[in-house]
């Protein structure tokens, strides 16, 4: 910053075509000011500079705090296992991209990721479907007891999930004869259902709330038109109301997907941790932690791989969300 000031002086001295106003401006630094004082004076005479400086400081701060952990994971992942104690803050101690292959060879990590992906997808679809029906009812129909009922639904999401764990675990470990043809053990433990059922239920209220607010804003006339044209109420919901609420549906879907995909508590306790038992990606990462040794570099590599699908999804969906919001705004 102070360098700029001196540059300006140099220019004005060497350039003969400089005008009087600029000369007057350059005369000022002749006052005996320190670097900080001169900088402050420039900021006062040109506040735009100050705003820009604060903007960059804030942006860099947030970028560093959010992205540095990922960078640090990358540093760890690239560091060979026997150099882990020498790892620096900014550079890996060595270069070992093989860790990203090793995670798939020591463990079927892809299976863990697939399990998680599948569970999160099923949960998202289920939540969006049930949430759409509930959102329609709460958002568009007027009936007695609507608000108490909505409150009741929302209250379930305020419970700590741990409170549900013991009863659910008991329930899912129970042998239900009816399920025997479908599930070999006859109980839900070690099946994807054990994870996606409770997680769908826990994340459902939020989605209902989001979808409700979006659905309630679709004009009644459009639903009436669809019904006269030949749909049922449910047909009108999925052919007209849902497509017109795309940003809301995308928001609810992405939130649910990420929440289920990243969930720790139920994911780690509802299976025995084997990939064949539909253990999710989280269990896979923890598997690199053995009895005598913690393979930090593999854990780091696995974490990065596990984040990728969600990161891609969010980038794609976010574009949809933003485009949906802006086209809606233009049309009105």
């Amino acid at each position, binding site marked *: 910053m102070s360098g700029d000031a001196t540059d300006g002086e140099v220019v004005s001295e060497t350039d003969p075509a400089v005008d009087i106003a600029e000369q007057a401006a350059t005369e000022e630094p002749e006052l005996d000011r320190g670097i900080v004082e001169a900088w402050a004076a420039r900021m006062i005479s040109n506040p735009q500079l100050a705003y820009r400086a604060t903007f960059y400081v804030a942006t860099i701060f947030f970028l560093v705090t959010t992205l540095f952990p990922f960078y640090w994971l990358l540093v760890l992942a690239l560091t060979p296992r026997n150099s882990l104690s020498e790892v620096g803050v900014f550079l890996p101690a060595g270069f070992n991209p093989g860790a990203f292959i090793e995670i798939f060879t020591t463990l079927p990590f892809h299976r863990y990721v697939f399990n998680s992906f599948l569970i999160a997808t099923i949960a998202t679809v289920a939540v969006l479907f049930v949430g759409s029906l509930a959102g329609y009812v709460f958002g568009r129909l007027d009936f007695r007891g609507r608000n108490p009922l909505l409150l009741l639904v929302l209250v379930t999401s305020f419970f700590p999930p741990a409170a549900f764990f013991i009863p659910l675990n008991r329930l899912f470990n129970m042998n239900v004869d009816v399920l025997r043809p479908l599930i070999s053990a006859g109980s839900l433990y070690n099946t994807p259902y054990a994870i996606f059922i409770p997680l769908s239920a826990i994340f459902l209220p939020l989605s209902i709330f989001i979808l409700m607010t979006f659905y309630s804003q679709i*004009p009644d*006339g459009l639903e*009436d038109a*669809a*019904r*006269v*044209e030949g749909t*049922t109420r449910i047909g009108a919901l999925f052919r*007209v109301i849902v497509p017109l609420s795309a940003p809301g549906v995308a928001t609810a879907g992405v939130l649910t997907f990420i929440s289920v995909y990243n969930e720790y508590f139920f994911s780690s306790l509802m299976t025995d941790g084997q990939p064949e038992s539909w253990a999710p990606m989280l269990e896979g990462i923890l598997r690199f932690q053995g009895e005598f040794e913690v393979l930090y570099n593999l854990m780091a590599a696995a974490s990065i791989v596990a984040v990728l699908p969600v990161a891609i999804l969010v980038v794609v969906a976010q574009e949809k969300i933003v485009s949906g919001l802006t086209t809606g705004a233009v049309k009105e």
Partner: protein
Amino acid sequence: MASVKLEGVTKRYEDVTAVNNMNLQIEDGEFVTFVGPSGCGKSTTMETIAGLTLPTEGTIEISGRDVTNLPPKDRGIAMVFQNIALFPHMDVYDNISFGLRLRKYEQKEVDRRVEEAADIVQLTGMMDRMPSEMSGGQRQRVAIARAIVRNPDAFLMDEPLANLDAELRVHMRTQLQRLHRELDTTIIYVTHDQAQAMTMSDRIAVINSGVLQQVAPPLECYNEPANRFVAGFIGSPSMNFIEGEAVADGFESVYTKIEFDPAMQGVSTGQEITVGVRPEDVHLERNVDQVGEPTRAFAAVVDVIEPVGKEVNAYLLFDRDVEASAEGRGEGQLLINLEPDTAITEGDDVQVVLDRENIHLFDRASGDAIGHSL
């Protein structure tokens, strides 16, 4: 094509009765307009016919088939909405073909019908436009095309022209009439604008506070209103009413006296009655030779003159002391319709006569019409 029959249709919400015991028979191919002030229940009546709202009581028949509890899609009707209600996420083709595609018509048939409908409303070549890229009139035509493409038994139109500007509204009005002539389908039309009702319909159903007041051809509603409400609602500017009492030799109010034989009209002496007379049936006494059977002249003062071009509306006061009411025409005021070149200025004292042939009598308590000429 279909007849529509409402029998004792009543719609009650928690605290209001929107439609009260509506009985109505609409013939095949007829253009019937529901008209009435805002909130009178005309839209609710239409919604019960469409099936969007279930009536609390009563039955609805379309083509002799009881559809009271059928969902809208199974009633064979199409509807055009006040807010047009095109699906914003579909282009014109998808909007028009929505109902056909739902009914699983073959692609060829869909294309043929969409083209035909687009042709009727002059929309060809706009098939891939989005509703947001069209003007209000074009959107309205798409909505009409969407309705006619399915060849419905009956059209329901809920104030379809209300959101258009005045010029376009008149244009679309004639288009709709032409459409009715071409398609020869039953049309039920809802509006609060009595000018639309008068110009387009075969019959008008005047509704007030959920109760059917009169169902008759437009001119009959105009010339022989069934009650005071219809008399005041149909016609613009609206009818003058003079409150008074039947006496031995006619009618007497504070400012006027009209002579007739009460027995001939079926009124008993002392009965409180209201005289209704349209502004065009009030004449200046100097033009009395234009009136077939004038009443006795009475004095009035010109209060306000409103030239509208082809005619002049003048507000008269029976007495200089009468306070002109801020809300509509009050007691002691009279609106008169004059030729544009009539020499008259505000503040003039004039003598006016009424045309006896077009004097309406109403019972004041019930509002029912007693007679339409003296």
